Structure formats: structure tokens, C-alpha cells
């Protein structure tokens, strides 16, 4: 029998329930996160028009760069200000 050492971080991933999807976006605050990929803003501009037309309030956010995870402060800002968030990946 061979005993070996675990090469991983040995972390167990916490699973969290997703929030229930809202039945309507009317009156909700929708965050639009631009990850700073080229032309992501084009996609988000159009989404904003559509969302406003169904009665949602839109807040725009932007990551400093698409290559790194969103900064903690930005994630906190989005989570405290929005009911829903949409993240755009575009090229």
C-alpha cells in the first residue's frame, strides 16, 4: 500500500442556491456589467434600451479589464445596488 499526499488545495466548494428568477423585470434594478471586451458596450447599449422599455431601471458597471476577475468592491457595489445582473462577453 502506498500513501501519497494530496496535491490539491483540499478545499470543498460551497454550493449556494441561486436566487429565484424574477417573474418580471418591471421596477427591478438591472445591472449591466461590461467586462471591457471590445464592442461589449454595443451589445449592452441595445440591452439597456430593451430593459428600459419593459420598465426596468438600468445601472451600468465596467470591469477594468476582461482578463481579471471583477474587483471585490465592484462585486459588492453590484450586489448591493441591483436585483439582477447581466454580464456581457463580446468581441
Amino acid at each position: 500500500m502506498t500513501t501519497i499526499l494530496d496535491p490539491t488545495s483540499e478545499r470543498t466548494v460551497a454550493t449556494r442556491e441561486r436566487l429565484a428568477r424574477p417573474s418580471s423585470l418591471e421596477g427591478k434594478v438591472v445591472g449591466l456589467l461590461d467586462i471591457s471586451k471590445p464592442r461589449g458596450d454595443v451589445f449592452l447599449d441595445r440591452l439597456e434600451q430593451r430593459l428600459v422599455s419593459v420598465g426596468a431601471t438600468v445601472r451600468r458597471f465596467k470591469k477594468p479589464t476582461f482578463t481579471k476577475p471583477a474587483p471585490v468592491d465592484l462585486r459588492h457595489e453590484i450586489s448591493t445596488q441591483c436585483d439582477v445582473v447581466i454580464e456581457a462577453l463580446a468581441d
Partner: protein
Amino acid sequence: MSAATLRPTLPDGVVAVVKRGCPTCELVAPVLRQLREAGVPLTVYTQDDPAFPEGTDPVDDTSLAMSWHHDIDTVPTLLRVFGGAEEARTEGWHRQRWEGLTGVSGLGEGLPETRPGCGSLSVDPNLAGELAVRFTGSRLRSRRIELAALEDEMEALFDRGWTDGLPVVPPTEARVLRMLEGTTREPDDVVAVAPPDLAPVTVEKVAVNAVMAGCKPEYLPVVLAAVEAACTDEFNIHGVLATTMPVGPVIIVNGPVRRRIGMNAGVNVLGQGNRANLTIGRALQLVIRNVGGGRPGEVDRAAHGNPGKLSFCFPEDEEGSPWEPLSVARGFAPGADVVTLFPGEGPRCVVDQASRDPESLASSLASALRTLHHPKLVLGFDAILVVGPEHARVFRDAGWGRAEVLAAIHERLTIPGSELVRGAGGIAEGVPEHLAAATLTKFRPGGLLLVHAGGGAGLFSAIIGGWANGAVGSQPTSREITR
């Protein structure tokens, strides 16, 4: 700490450590009996046969705990102990010293004056790994995984998802402890926080993965420096891993450590065959995979990847270089051991067998560099130019330093925006139209790294293309290597 880890206290008086398998110990057995008869408070520890030597009431040290913890190298060893502390030690049989240490004269009548001892079992190379695990294994915090008797070790590691697609060396406690001898750092010292899971990486976890990669202990400090450099915001291994582009961490090593650990900077420098080159790069990638949780198809989204993502590490040929080492050009002291990490794709060859003057060669290299990623895309990507010795000779003969070579290449890669904009040349790809009137350079300042390496024959150089550069993506990142 487990019982095995605790250092047993020596009894006061005279202590002898012996083994039956040692002729000198057999020789001194009557002397030990003589000491007891003389009323000396003597304790005899025996390493192999608990009954040996007869008539001395020996204490069983077949576990070797006493011998190991008190650094017994030779048997017989005679110690004088007071208040639990060692006051005097003599090894082998040496009448005068034995008499001095015990205060008893006339010892061992008929024996030779001196006789060298034998090796202690506690330093037997065949037992070194097992004993290290027994007495220091509790330093290791990693979870122990017992592989079943019928489980194939190699297959077990594949099955658990811990390999890069090639077999790995099973990281047993003995191997990991041996690996840790390569550094002065404590096993629980945190080296970095590894993306994408943002998991703390300890020296021990690096050692485990370095064992798996096939490293020798003396490579460990290089791996530690590479892990530290990779996991900085500056290098951004998260982005390097996650990108759809084919890049991975490329490690360039400078300093005396290259030769000390036997790295290859010459023939086939970027290829197979050298253990240090290959396993150091592999160890870094295994750390990112296993500790960081970065796996292909998950956070690693590369469209194609490249074979260098298994391992890509090479040293600069400083001795044959016309220039100061890359590390010195980047601000480190001459003689410092340094790793420089670069987010790179696979290398491609530049052939120029005709240029004998530096202007012509610079033009050749520049025209090949222009095509990097796309001939119409500029400024966004860095590159390494690995200048082969035969190309470097052309620059050396002309007295061109790093600065002159870089300036000549940059000059040749200063391009009118009108050639680069989208649509120009019938190619949709390119820079935005508003740059049509601008003059652009292929590389940003500092975006081209020159490294001297390769075999002595062949008028070739190699280009290693980079990835999104600067604050947006990744900066070439250097760290000093310390033991």
C-alpha cells in the same frame, strides 16, 4: 506532534549506541560490561538486536528514535550526559578517549588502541526516506491518501484528475520530505494565492507538485520563485489561463543556478531532453492545475493551446552571450538568480542564413516579428526573441548591444497606420480606422525581450509570441530565486 516526532531525552551518565552488525561494537562489548562492573551509570542503546550486547541490559532502539534524534552517525558512539544534555561524545573505539569520557582507566585490556566504528543505521541511505517520514512526517499538513494494494499508482493519479495528461511521480511522504530539503523555507509558508480558485499555495503544496512533475530538490527554489511570479496581479496567471489564446507561462532562468542544477541553454534549448528545463515548467503548471484549480475546458478556455503548456522553461546562455543577461537588463544585480515569466505561445523559427551585417539581420528579424499574431495588429502583444548564437555573433561582431538591436528592430517595425487599419490590404482585421493617419510601432516600449540561447550551429532565432500586454493583460514578471 506525534510521539515519533518528539526528541527522546538522554539518560544522565554514560550512553553508548551500538549495533550487533558492527565488528567494532562486538569488539567493545566486553568494555561496556567492564564499565558496568566499575559502577559507571551506563545506558546502552542497541539499533538492531535488542539482546546485544549481552550483560549490559541494553535498551531497544530498533525504532532508531534515540539514534536519529541525537544525530548518531557512527556506532559505537559514547556520550556523557548531564541534566539531559550531551557534554561529550566520542565515536568508534579509542581507548584514551573512552577512558577520558568515563573516568575509568585500564579499559579494554588486550584490545587495539583504536578501531574506527561503523555507520549508524539511523543514517543508512536505504532507510533515510522511511526515517524522515517516521520522525519528521508530521511537519507535513497535506491530507494522506492511501492507495489500495490493487490500485496501480500511476493510474490512481490519472483517475483523480491530478495529471497534465502525462504520468506523474506519486508524491509519497518520503519524496516530499526529500523535495523540501531543497529549500530553507518552512512547509507551511504561503508562497502565493493561486488562481482561479484563489487558494493559498504553501511551500509544501509546491513540493508535492514538484515531486509529481519529476523535479529534483535543488530545482524547488526555482519553482517557488516561478509560482510566486505567476500568481501576481502583474503577471495575471488567471487571465493567462482563462484566455482563448494559446499562451501559457514561459519561464526564463538567469544566474548561476542555471548551471548548478544542470539546465540546458544550448542545443535544443526549447525542446526535450533536459530534466531541469522540463520539470520546472511542468511543476508550475501542476500547481496551477491542482492547487489553483485551473483545468482545460473549465477556466482554461484556450481555443488551441500549445504543447508548451505542459512545460516551457529555459535558461539564457549567459556565458556565450554578447549581452548582459536578461535579468540584468531588467534591473537585477549581476550574479543574482532570477526567473522571468512571460505569457507565451509556442516558438517559431526565423531563418536567415545570409545576413552578415547587423542591419540586414535586424531587417530579417523585424519582418518575421511583424507577422506576430497578425501582421496588421500592433502594440497589443509582447514577444520574446530568442537569438541563436550564430545570429548573435553578427551583432557581436558589429558591436551592437541589446539597446542597438532593439532600436534597429523597432525602427523597422514603425508602420503607417494606413497599412494597418481594418480593411487595408483587403483584410478586415486591423487597428481601428481612426488610426489611419498615425504612425504605429509593432511593439510597445519594453515589449520585446531579447534572450540569448540555442545550439552553436544554425543561423536561426526563435520568436515566442505573447498575449494581451500591460495593465489590461500580463506584464513580463521577474522574481529573485532564494533558497
